[in-house]
């Protein structure tokens, strides 16, 4: 990923056509042979990658029509966790700043959206604005708060930072509980923003081109579209000048500073972008779960996102998406499996070794440990291993 001389051309506009040419110039069967820096920095380095990405996307668009309603809602959660995960990965994976405060920024985004896009009901305020207004602002307000916090966070390193951001979660939870008029107060909560985009309610069943589309499907497709936009944006950020600055700061901050990377500015940028993603994810998540209480945005949500990043793989966008799918779908798989397992009772009854919820959480913890110990590159690393096995097939050993 070093590209000193040809950087200028990599930044030139009209990159789409450049990609087209680049992929043709890559030799068939030699996907790692780059003859130009532009090729190495391309969005999709090989044609195979592009074809598979587009194919995967098509499957993800068609999939909800073949699934039941609660499964579709689960898919939407995956998309939202992927958005938040990508945000945390920019900060933790790319820029190397460990944050336990992600839940705070998600909450901030959710409440910004709820105040701007929700209805005023009872004691809570709500302006009932359009999604075109509240969605960007749900990202921008947390980003602004990130901008305020960043200079402080940039002063401390490593584990000091992790605990500093842990403090953010607790202080944030306290503020959320106290700001009754915004959040509805502790234990009570409030309804989230209404997803009405340009006057069209995205959360009602509709008939589009003669096909009956469930409201959960519409919501899921919206989340997916936002995910695609933000994922491509993150990928582009990662291969830009700033992305390389992030990597330099992560790998050795002193060396990066010596090379002329402005540490404060780079870390601040990472914080701001990460908070923006978290805010968007929080706003969408609040719509999916339906009613939000201040207790939603606690330390365990932060740990969930940390798991998305670490299980998915540090510093990869596709890894974050895989990690999100893993973290969201694992409990469902466990629930399904537990009917076949002895010693596991369902939630209602006692007895058994553990109930389903306990088993889900324990497995979650165990998997964090197992992945970090055995495959630090996460699911992405597993994928690379599988790919390399077949690359060398039949001589793989």
């Amino acid at each position, binding site marked *: 990923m070093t590209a000193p001389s040809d950087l200028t051309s990599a930044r030139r506009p009209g990159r789409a056509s450049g990609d087209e040419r680049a992929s043709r110039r890559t030799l068939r069967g030699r996907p790692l042979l780059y003859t130009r820096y532009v090729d190495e920095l391309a969005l999709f380095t090989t044609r195979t990658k592009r074809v598979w990405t587009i194919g995967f996307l098509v499957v993800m668009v068609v999939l909800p029509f073949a699934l039941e309603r609660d499964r579709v809602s689960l898919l939407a959660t995956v998309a939202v966790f992927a958005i938040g995960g990508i945000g945390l990965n920019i900060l933790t994976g790319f820029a190397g700043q460990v944050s336990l405060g992600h839940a705070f920024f998600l909450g901030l985004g959710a409440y910004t959206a709820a105040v701007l896009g929700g209805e005023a009901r009872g004691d809570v305020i709500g302006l009932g604005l359009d999604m075109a207004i509240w969605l960007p602002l749900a990202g921008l307000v947390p980003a602004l708060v990130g901008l305020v916090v960043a200079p402080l966070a940039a*002063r401390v390193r490593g*584990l000091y930072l992790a605990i500093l951001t842990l403090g953010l979660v607790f202080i944030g939870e306290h503020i959320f509980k106290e700001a009754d008029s915004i959040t509805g107060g502790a234990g009570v909560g409030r309804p989230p923003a209404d997803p009405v985009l340009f006057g069209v309610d995205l959360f009602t069943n509709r008939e589009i081109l003669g096909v009956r589309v469930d409201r959960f499907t519409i919501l899921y497709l919206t989340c997916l579209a936002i995910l695609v936009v933000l994922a491509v944006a993150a990928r582009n950020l990662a291969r830009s000048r700033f992305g390389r600055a992030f990597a330099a700061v992560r790998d050795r901050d*002193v060396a990066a500073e010596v090379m002329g990377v402005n540490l404060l500015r780079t870390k601040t940028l990472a914080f701001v972008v990460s908070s923006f993603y978290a805010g968007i994810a929080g706003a969408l998540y609040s719509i999916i779960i339906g009613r939000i209480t201040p207790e939603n945005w606690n330390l365990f949500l932060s740990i969930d996102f940390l798991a998305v990043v*670490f299980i998915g793989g540090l510093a990869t966008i596709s890894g974050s998406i895989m990690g999100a799918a893993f973290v969201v779908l694992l409990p469902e798989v466990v629930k399904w499996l537990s009917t076949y397992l002895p010693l596991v009772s369902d939630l209602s009854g006692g007895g058994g070794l553990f109930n389903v919820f306990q088993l889900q959480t324990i497995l979650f*913890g165990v998997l*964090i*440990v197992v992945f*970090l110990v055995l495959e630090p590159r996460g699911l992405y690393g597993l994928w690379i291993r599988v790919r390399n096995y077949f690359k060398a097939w039949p001589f793989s050993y």
Partner: protein
Amino acid sequence: METFLVAVIQGVALGSVYALLGVGFVIIYRATEVINFAQPALMILGAYAASAFATRVGLPFWLAVLLAMLVLAVIGMLTERIALRPMVGRPSFSAATVTVGVFIVLLIVAFRLIGATILTVGDPWGLTRMEVLGVTVFALDIAKIVVSLTAIAAVGLFLTRSRVGLAMRATALDQETALAQGVDVGRMFGISWAIAAAMAALAGVLISSGATGVDATIALLALKALPVIILGGLDSIKGSVIAGLIIGVAESLTKAYQPQYAPWLGANFDLVVPYLIMIVVLMVRPYGLFGTKEVIRV
């Protein structure tokens, strides 16, 4: 004046338990450069073990506490051997994330063991009160101060006077050099975890004595030891004792006076005070009050 004195004594009591937890964090951090996020879960398990020994088996309280500390020391050692030893040489935040996973697992185990009932640890203090400095306080608060500070002093003596303690300090200073001098560094890691887990168990017993009872939600209380070690500096035992007392007293004073003088800060504001103090201090001193400033080279 009486409110003030009572608040201060309660604060010191709370602070010494924080210090006890904090010293556990510091010992592990010095040995392995890992913050052990599993400490709160170890604390609850310790409280549960003591409760089981004291109330179900029927052992005398102090024997039950000692046994619980022993059991937890073994659990701590095993955790280190299984989950943390393979992480040696990896970035410290990866290792810290491993302990987050361990935390989740142990916390659920504790939930499962404790169940819906609130257990007592069978402590001798209960709700008895006594006179100190002219004010009436709970005997439990005095017990917290005495027991915590005694335990910390014992660990301090162990580290400075014993042969193993010397080896542990050598490991903390420089692992390779310690290895070259014949110190079994891996064993020192295990011992550090054992000591920290035993201290967590003791802290758990102290927190859940009196009217509180063994309840898995006290895990969040143990997390407040994190601002304590940050305030004191991650690698300073002295720092964590002083910071523990500062934060304990500040929290207790806030609890006593804030509802009266600053009600607009909201209910339970005292619970966030430790984090606020930590953030303010980090702005001025990024390595806490007594932490060693990291010397880094390119």
